[in-house]
């Protein structure tokens, strides 16, 4: 029988793709996340069946789509399935790969920034920290925080333009 480790090692890498599909179908990020989690819970419940399945990725994708369709039927009881947006698995996979590649590029560019600028960018755009908290954590004045941020953005743009 499939263990938890095997299950997560096999199916957790599919999560970004599944989330993209759910977002396309449901048109809502929070609902898409819920749908993906529900899909994983269902897959775990049906792990015996999943183990015998040759195309586990396809099984997971179909489970997610069925769940999303059920959700949409609940929201819009008079909408037919044919009216749903057509989602190609290949397109979704390609989109996920592009996003992963961009994220990797961002990481690579960030490593080339000075520590203060790196921290400022992370706080501002990734951790969603307020300007006052940034002043406290970085130990800078408000003007210095603005200056650091603007320099970091300028450096990133420069690196992107120069293709580094």
């Amino acid at each position: 029988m499939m263990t938890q480790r095997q299950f997560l090692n096999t199916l957790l890498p599919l999560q970004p793709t599944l989330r993209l599909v759910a977002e396309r179908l449901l048109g809502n990020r929070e609902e898409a996340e819920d749908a993906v989690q529900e899909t994983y819970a269902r897959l775990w419940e049906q792990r015996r069946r999943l183990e015998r399945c040759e195309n586990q990725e396809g099984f997971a994708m179909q489970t997610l789509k069925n769940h999303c369709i059920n959700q949409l039927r609940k929201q819009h009881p008079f909408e037919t399935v044919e009216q749903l947006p057509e989602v190609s698995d290949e397109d979704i996979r390609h989109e996920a790969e592009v996003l992963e590649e961009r994220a990797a590029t961002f990481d690579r560019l960030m490593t080339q920034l000075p520590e203060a600028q790196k921290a400022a960018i992370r706080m501002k755009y990734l951790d969603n920290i307020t300007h006052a908290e940034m002043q406290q954590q970085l130990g800078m004045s408000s003007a210095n925080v603005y200056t650091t941020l603007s320099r970091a953005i300028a450096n990133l743009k420069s690196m992107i333009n120069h293709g580094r």
Partner: protein
Amino acid sequence: MEDKELQQLVEAKLWQLENQRQQEEIASRIGRQRIVWPWWLGTAAAAAILAAVLLSPLLSGKEELVAKAENLEILEKLDNLDYLDYLEPPTHTATTPAEPLPTAPVATADSVPASIPPIEPEPVLPTTNYQLPTTNSPTVHTRRSNRLGDIKKAPEKPKVPALIAHYIDIPDTVLFTSNIVINLK
């Protein structure tokens, strides 16, 4: 952020971070916590189990050897014993004489008192008017005791015709006042 390409990069990074967060949520929901055991813990446990398995026969062998050695020691002691020592009575070669046992004191004429005080009479308890019941009191015979026959027979009553024999248990007062008795007379 004005630059479109940079914005795309940041969005992609955010998307990736969101994916990581959700993967952790899914993993915890499935029931698996991301616990990374230190590698040496597994090695130490394996070594301990291996050592226990390898040393267990040695330890048990040591116990057997100790038991055998103790048995040999006992046998050797038994061989060295002179059994005649136990058959002959023991000879006391004590250097100091045994202390005499304490003797009971003997009564002499001086020790007995000249006159023994007379024994005082015991005080007489006051008598009461209570009297025990006499033996002439009438005995009561229950039907059960008569049936069993373990009680002495009741005193004979004057013979009466068979017609009223079953009235024998009626008290005398009834007998003398009833019409039946009168008619008989």
